[in-house]
């Protein structure tokens, strides 16, 4: 038991921890900046909702290095992402792709908002048609001033 624990600690200690390492970074600042931007939208597939840029897992490190290799080889950002997706699937993208499986995801937010606006619109219309008779007539300017004088406070 103690032995396995020791081994476990050693394994964990050997982790090349903490996200992007100086050693991985590219000398060309422009390329490095592109690598960082790409990395921020790629998921570390063994982690819980972390990008490879933030993650300290081995796999994330491998992916960061891979992204940089492709960039140095002259790939465009698009080509790098496509290459990573071809190896790891859509799961690796933190922004879900726009395709049939995700139509519902992308179309639903505007749809929900639209339905909400519609519901509120019909609420007002129904209330107005039901309530015209009940709605008191608005006060005239003179009446309003008088009420204000009587009450003495409350801004108009």
């Amino acid at each position, binding site marked *: 038991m103690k032995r396995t624990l020791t081994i476990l600690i050693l394994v964990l200690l050997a982790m090349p921890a903490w996200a992007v390492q100086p050693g991985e970074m590219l000398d060309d600042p422009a390329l490095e900046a592109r690598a960082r931007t790409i990395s921020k939208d790629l998921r570390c597939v063994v982690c819980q909702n972390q990008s490879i840029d933030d993650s300290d897992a081995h796999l994330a490190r491998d992916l960061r290095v891979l992204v940089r290799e492709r960039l140095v080889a002259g790939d465009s950002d698009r080509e790098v992402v496509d290459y990573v997706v071809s190896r790891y699937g859509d799961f690796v*993208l933190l922004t879900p792709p726009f395709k049939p499986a995700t139509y519902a995801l992308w179309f639903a937010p505007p749809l929900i908002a639209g339905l909400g606006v519609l519901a509120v619109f019909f609420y007002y219309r129904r209330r107005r048609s039901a309530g015209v008779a009940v709605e008191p007539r608005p006060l005239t300017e003179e009446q309003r001033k008088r009420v204000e004088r009587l009450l003495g406070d409350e801004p108009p």
Partner: protein
Amino acid sequence: MIVETGHFALVMALVVALVQATLPLIGAQRGNEAWMAMARPAAIAQMLFVSVSFGCLTYAYLTSDFSVLNVVNNSHSAKPLIYKISGVWGNHEGSMLLWVLILAVFGAAVAVFGANLPPTLKARVLGVQALVSVGFFLFVLFTSNPFERILPAPPDGHGLNPLLQDPGLAIHPPFLYLGYVGFSIAFSFAIAALIEGRVDAAWARWVRPWTLAAWMFLTAGIGLGSWWAYYELGWGGWWFWDPVENASFLPWLSGTALLHSAVVVEKRDTLKGWTVFLAIVTFSLSLLGAFLVRSGVLTSVHAFATDPARGVFILVLLLIVIGGSFALFAWRGPSLKASGLFLPVSREGSLLLNNLLLTTAAAVVLLGTLYPLFLDAIGGGKVSVGAPFFNAVFVPLMVPLLVAMAIGPLLPWKRGDLVAIFWRVQLVLGLTGAAVFLTWVFAADGPMFALLGMGLAAWLAVGTLFEIGERTRLFRASMAESGRRLRRVSRAAWGMTAAHFGVAVLVAGITASSAWTVESIQTMRPGETVQIAGYDFTFEGARDTRGPNYEAVTGTFTVTRDERPFTVLRPERRVYPVEGQQTTEAAIRSTFLGDLYAVIGEAEGADGAFVTRLYFNPLVPWIWAGLVIMCIGGVVSLSDRRHRVGAPSRRHRAQAVESPAAA
């Protein structure tokens, strides 16, 4: 023996809850006053039994009783006292015991402070509250018993996840649960109202303080969680749209909507069905959050246990609660008649807009959180829905909300005039324009969204202050007159002003930290200096240090500004041998304009060089300040006498009896 007492007390609590869940409800239906009156003593007894139970588990933790399986799995004799205590809820079984404790405490609070509730309403609220309790007591006793023994007792425990051994995270779960579970009161009031078939101003006045208290706790709980992520995870992020974070954010969004719609019910006797609906939705989202986190459907640091039996149990509980309450709503909801009328441009209209935007936001966040699970379940493949999606759908909803937030409080009830308002807020518009211009001048190279964000923050901050100015006729009446009016502003109004101002500060902090964070990652040898945002960080080297139950590497950075010493930062990287895990402890020095943030990584080579990560995180302290101001707003509003009609002071008693809510 003490452990068995705890277990027995929990069973007794279940028995009492069963009585509380049946007799008062039947009594209210039949008009049997004796049965209705059972609710109050039962709620108090239930709370006492659960307290005893919780106390016994805490005792087992404090004395490191390793004959209790739960203690073995989550504690260690060498752990500092505070984490022995927080270990009680730092695991699945214990946290569910905390959940039922809070549920019972809220129930007892209604029983004690609800002296002037109508007897039938009170009996029904407490009955419904006990029904929820029964479900969770059964869950704890049958699937998650924290009092299980282990024989033979091992010599020592496995320790607590080091990530949880942190002051911020020690008190994060209790606050979060106070929020989640606090919404159960709003839920019980909503169900009781549906059974009674009656929702009126008095009902809303009783619901509001409980909702406000729950909202405040949830705000604090989420804030603590973010704060922890910020200083513990080591790269300055504080919100990740992680499913578990979303689980706590969903009830916050709908709870905030509920808080505002309940105002309309109280003041204007309309939006009744909608408010009841929101109360049910908010508690349902709290339960859904508990299910998502506890079932292990989402695996992360929060999912202490991934046991399908528990997931199924909570799922069934969820279906019964949500299904039952929505069925009741569909049946009884239409009978709730509204009387107040209003036009779209009015105070009520702006509150309805708030509700529309907040519930839409909750719906799209829920969709994004569940979509990967849903798609996987129907065999549609695996996708990730990450921060970019949530930002893309959430931010567009918040922009109009923030714009309306400054205008809404200026509008009169029933009908308003937007054009007139526009002419009145020239000053606010001007100052907002100035803020945008200043942002542009000082950070012209920053992203465009920063101009929008800072503009919105300024608009809301100035607009909120402007509203108080209008209320007191500042500069339009004499100073004495304004002072007199200022003193007459109710605490509830001050609470709103503070909370809205807090949101403005929060928005500024979020915008600045997303837009202008400065980061520098490098290998540093002792004596080397890196300059960030005008501060010079000199690495003085690192040494091995020891804590009570961990070993650490502590780095030292001296920070100077313009050649003058500014501060010393000592980040740590800890190893917890018992649990075999590492944690980072970022060193943070907060200034008004931002945080200096240093993290120490791995040693590189033999000459004392280390990988270091240095950041300047602009306006991050404003995020925490904004959240604190929001919570203070909640406290101030709660202290308003009108919110505690159940406990009027002696001096005010006569008035309270005259007010319609107390009648």
